[in-house]
């Protein structure tokens, strides 16, 4: 295209007109000279030339980018058409905004959590170095890391650029106002450099900082820095008391720092300062490596496979003989995202159904409007607009609708994401990464263009398709109606309603299944009763106290005594691991069983308890009895086991009493004195694991388990009240005023968290289902209301001839019910195929659950009945005289 000619095309056209005029003059002169009359000569010259306008148009078009120009024109026209019909435009735009917005919001979540790379440079090179372990008959996905592994791998690896180890912990911060419990992230020196980012302030830990006995240092997280220090850069160099030790702040983390534990935001980063001389049983860590450039995860895996025998060779003597480890290097992102990805994709799929329903709705509106615009389109066709031209201008109108809808939807998405992030479900990792970024906007643009084409093409194909006689003549013959209207159009409108109802049913069924899942989870017996009345609180014990177990146990007993004395507390106890908290996994040997050489019994969850825990939780003691204080103080070798442990190990509950087990590979035999009811420790939707409970004694009997403070549990009907909490604070402060309190919660809240995946999906699918129902009703209503309007004359005649209003009403309701009936049947079939995809979200209900399907269908039938009845009643109220006169 020539832009100079494009710009000058108006002038060129004027010149062309002049040239053609000069042709006519010259030719007319010639004909007059041959003896024609002037008028006749002029006419003959015109005939000889042909149609001057067409010539000019042809030349004009040589100089234009016709398509661009035509599109501009179409845009102007489209804007005008939308302004002329505000009711239609607003309905369509809002419907689309809803569909596009819901889909975009869900995509933002998928994008932020699953798709986007982690916020570290070249983040694909970050891997979690771990092992899968075969322990007797149990295969573990993750065998935790130990300092000795770190040492061997650091010295021998060929594929790691940086390599470090980490674990989360709690720390007590004192001296900055009230004692405070902070979430600490303990790392070895290699961890932070492996991330490939720089500290926002200060520096990372040096190798010297990470040596045992080195001066104590710490790095603040961005959030804690802002919260406690107002983002003051002078914080570097400050000395802060953490766990009663003075630590110097040497750096501040960048704002975007993501660890693979959803819901846990570290406040402090502390160097682990590992002493390699300690016994090699400290399996409490996870390891992260940045691979050398060009190294793939399988290569790193092979490297670990090569190093494993070195490690085992050096440390196998230490209870490692029966441990079969296999290398399992995987992307760090996989750890961060966890199993959320699948759930989110299922939700995105479900919610995009809403967009399809919205499209069907708008397509229906457009069909109706194509009818109303018959005259306009026929005139345009008669004036020489081609099929393509008209189709293009209609498509431009559709696209304008969907793009305006997209514009509003971005606002809706923004609002929705604000709500989501503010509610902050602990279930979702990378919550702060969920934003509206360029890929989200590109997605929005793409789905709005696709939906614009989708709902825009349906009316075009139906109204102007090859079968329709869409000419001015046909239009006039049709009595002022678009000739192709009538049957074919009704059929496509009906089809769209059927599709809407079917899709709405699919969404209703999925949200129904989630409701059933939620109900089932609620109905599950968690193993404790009235969890909303069980208050928990975990004072963070300073390491100085933990170093002296005898003093620790005494302090804990003193606190318990004070707490139990609080008015309204009916029973109190403590444990190192609350329900849903998961305990420590330890190999448990039953005395009566023999294991072949190299074979190990499976690991079990072990929890330490004080007497009275089961009374507080209201967990039944099925056989035997609870431990007593004498057994705790005197370190008697007694334990309690859960019912499933007894059944799995000895096939009996009552017979378990008196049997002996050993925790770990060393240590002494422990006598089983009681069997207690099962507790769903891994979440309501998981089977209750076999658990061993032992008295929380002074001696650590399970190897060097990291010292963990205990959580107190109080049963009271005062839980959650300010007065109760302040009583608890006073009671703890009376024993030691410097203990920060953590995990102030009820067991009910812990239980809720374990159901968060379900409630999150339930809320989203519930919203989608509700909106789908609404759009479905609007769809049915719209089509019937339109039919009533169109058939007003027919209805008038019927009534005039004596038809009963009831019959007329029935006629329309019947049509509505037939349509929704077909839609429901179709939706049932589709849902039966699709719900299988969400089976991982379900609990206690099969994907094809007859009751849920029936309920969803019932809801739709009632809604459809209402949506059909209103227009039907209007039809019956038609005044025959008025109508007949009006026509």
């Amino acid at each position, binding site marked *: 295209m020539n832009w100079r000619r494009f710009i000058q095309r108006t002038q060129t056209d004027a010149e062309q007109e*002049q*040239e053609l005029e000069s042709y006519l003059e*010259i030719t007319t002169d010639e004909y007059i000279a041959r003896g024609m009359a002037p008028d006749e000569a002029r006419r003959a010259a015109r005939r000889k030339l042909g149609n001057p306008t067409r*010539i000019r148009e042809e030349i004009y078009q040589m100089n234009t980018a016709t398509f661009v120009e035509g599109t501009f024109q179409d845009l102007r026209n489209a804007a005008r058409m939308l302004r002329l019909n505000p009711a239609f435009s607003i309905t369509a735009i809002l419907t689309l905004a809803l569909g596009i917005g819901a889909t975009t919001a869900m995509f933002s979540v998928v994008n932020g959590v699953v798709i986007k790379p982690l916020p570290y440079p070249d983040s694909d090179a970050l891997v979690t170095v771990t092992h899968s372990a075969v322990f007797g008959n149990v295969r573990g996905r993750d065998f935790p890391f130990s300092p000795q592994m770190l040492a061997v791998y650091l010295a021998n690896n060929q594929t790691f650029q940086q390599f470090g180890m980490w674990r989360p912990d709690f720390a007590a911060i004192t001296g900055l106002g009230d004692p405070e419990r902070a979430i600490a992230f303990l790392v070895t020196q290699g961890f932070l450099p492996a991330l490939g980012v720089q500290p926002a302030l200060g520096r990372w830990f040096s190798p010297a900082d990470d040596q045992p006995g080195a001066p104590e240092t710490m790095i603040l997280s961005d959030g804690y820095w802002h919260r406690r220090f107002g983002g003051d850069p002078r914080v570097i160099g400050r000395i802060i008391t953490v766990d009663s030790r003075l630590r110097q702040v040497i750096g501040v983390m960048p704002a975007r720092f993501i660890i693979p534990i959803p819901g846990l935001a570290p406040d402090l980063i502390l160097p682990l300062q590992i002493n390699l001389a300690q016994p090699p049983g400290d399996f409490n860590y996870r390891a992260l490596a940045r691979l050398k450039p060009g190294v793939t995860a399988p290569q790193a895996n092979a490297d670990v496979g090569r190093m494993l025998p070195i490690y085992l060779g050096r440390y196998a003597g230490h209870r490692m003989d029966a441990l079969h480890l296999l290398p399992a290097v995987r992307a760090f992102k996989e750890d961060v995202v966890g199993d959320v990805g699948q759930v989110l994709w299922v939700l995105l799929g479900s919610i995009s159904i809403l967009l399809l329903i919205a499209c069907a709705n708008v397509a229906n509106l457009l069909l109706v409007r194509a009818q109303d615009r018959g005259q306009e389109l026929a005139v345009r066709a008669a004036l020489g607009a081609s099929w393509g031209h008209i189709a293009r201008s209609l498509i431009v109108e559709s696209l304008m609708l969907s793009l305006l809808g997209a514009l509003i939807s971005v606002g809706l998405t923004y609002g929705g994401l604000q709500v989501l992030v503010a509610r902050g479900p602990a279930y979702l990792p990378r919550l702060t990464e969920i934003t509206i970024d360029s890929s989200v906007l590109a997605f929005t643009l793409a789905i709005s263009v696709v939906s614009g084409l989708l709902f825009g093409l349906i009316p075009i194909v139906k109204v102007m398709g090859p079968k329709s006689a869409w000419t001015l003549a046909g239009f006039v013959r049709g009595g002022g109606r678009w000739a192709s209207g009538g049957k074919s159009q009704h059929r496509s409108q009906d089809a769209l309603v059927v599709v809407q109802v079917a899709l709405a049913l699919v969404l209703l069924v999925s949200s129904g299944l989630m409701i059933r899942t939620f109900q089932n989870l609620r109905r599950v017996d968690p193993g404790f009763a009235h969890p909303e009345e069980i208050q928990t609180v975990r004072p963070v014990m300073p390491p100085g106290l933990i170093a002296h177990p005898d003093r620790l146990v005494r302090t804990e007993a003193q606190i318990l005594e004070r707490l139990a004395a609080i008015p309204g507390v009916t029973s109190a106890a403590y444990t190192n691991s609350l329900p849903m908290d998961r305990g420590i996994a330890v190999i448990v040997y039953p005395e009566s069983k023999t294991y072949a050489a190299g074979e190990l019994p499976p690991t079990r969850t072990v929890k330490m308890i004080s007497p009275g825990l089961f009374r507080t939780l209201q967990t039944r003691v099925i056989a035997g009895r609870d431990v007593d204080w004498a057994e705790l103080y005197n370190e008697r070798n007694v334990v309690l086991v859960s019912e499933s442990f007894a059944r799995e190990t000895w096939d009996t509950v009552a017979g378990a009493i008196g049997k002996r087990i050993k925790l770990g590979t060393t240590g002494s035999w422990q006598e089983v004195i009681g069997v207690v009811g099962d507790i769903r420790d891994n979440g309501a939707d998981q089977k209750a694991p076999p658990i061993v409970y032992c008295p929380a004694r002074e001696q650590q009997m399970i190897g060097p388990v990291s010292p963990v403070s205990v959580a107190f549990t109080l049963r009271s009907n005062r839980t959650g009240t300010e007065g109760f909490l302040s009583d608890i604070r006073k009671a703890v402060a009376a024993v030691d005023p410097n203990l920060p309190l953590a995990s102030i919660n009820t067991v009910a809240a812990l239980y809720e968290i374990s159901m968060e995946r379900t409630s999150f999906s339930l809320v989203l699918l519930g919203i989608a289902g509700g909106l789908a129902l609404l759009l479905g009703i609007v769809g049915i209503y719209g089509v019937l209301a339109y039919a009533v309007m169109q058939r007003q004359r027919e209805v008038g005649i019927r009534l005039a001839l004596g038809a009963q209003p009831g019959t007329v009403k029935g006629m329309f309701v019947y049509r509505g019910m037939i349509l929704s009936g077909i839609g429901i049947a179709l939706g049932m079939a589709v849902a039966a195929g699709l719900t299988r995809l969400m089976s991982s979200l379900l609990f206690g209900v099969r994907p094809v659950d007859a009751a849920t399907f029936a309920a969803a269908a019932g809801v739709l039938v009632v809604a459809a009945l209402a949506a059909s009845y209103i227009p039907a009643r209007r039809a019956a109220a038609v005044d025959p005289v008025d109508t007949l006169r009006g026509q």
Partner: protein
Amino acid sequence: MLQGTLDMLVLRTLVLGPAHGQTIAHAIERGSQDVLQVEHGSLYPALHRLQNRGWIASFWGTSENNRKAKYYRLTPEGRKQLAAQKSRWEQLVRAISRIMSPPSEQKQ
């Protein structure tokens, strides 16, 4: 008229000197002894196209009977084009005539 031949004929006409649209149309008709009927209207888009390609140039002048008229003349580039098109055309004509009346048939 054959596709594309109109351009060649216009160029050929202008070899004789500048002319306005009407003269060109008449010249083609007369030169072909009225075998080739040019719809005069279709001539103008062709002229416009040739001008856009730079093969002909235009100027406003006065016709024989004192009417203002747009005259076209051949540019050097147009002259080259004409030569090229002419030789291609002659090749085409020879090829077609060989097929339509092969030498063997001529002998009989």
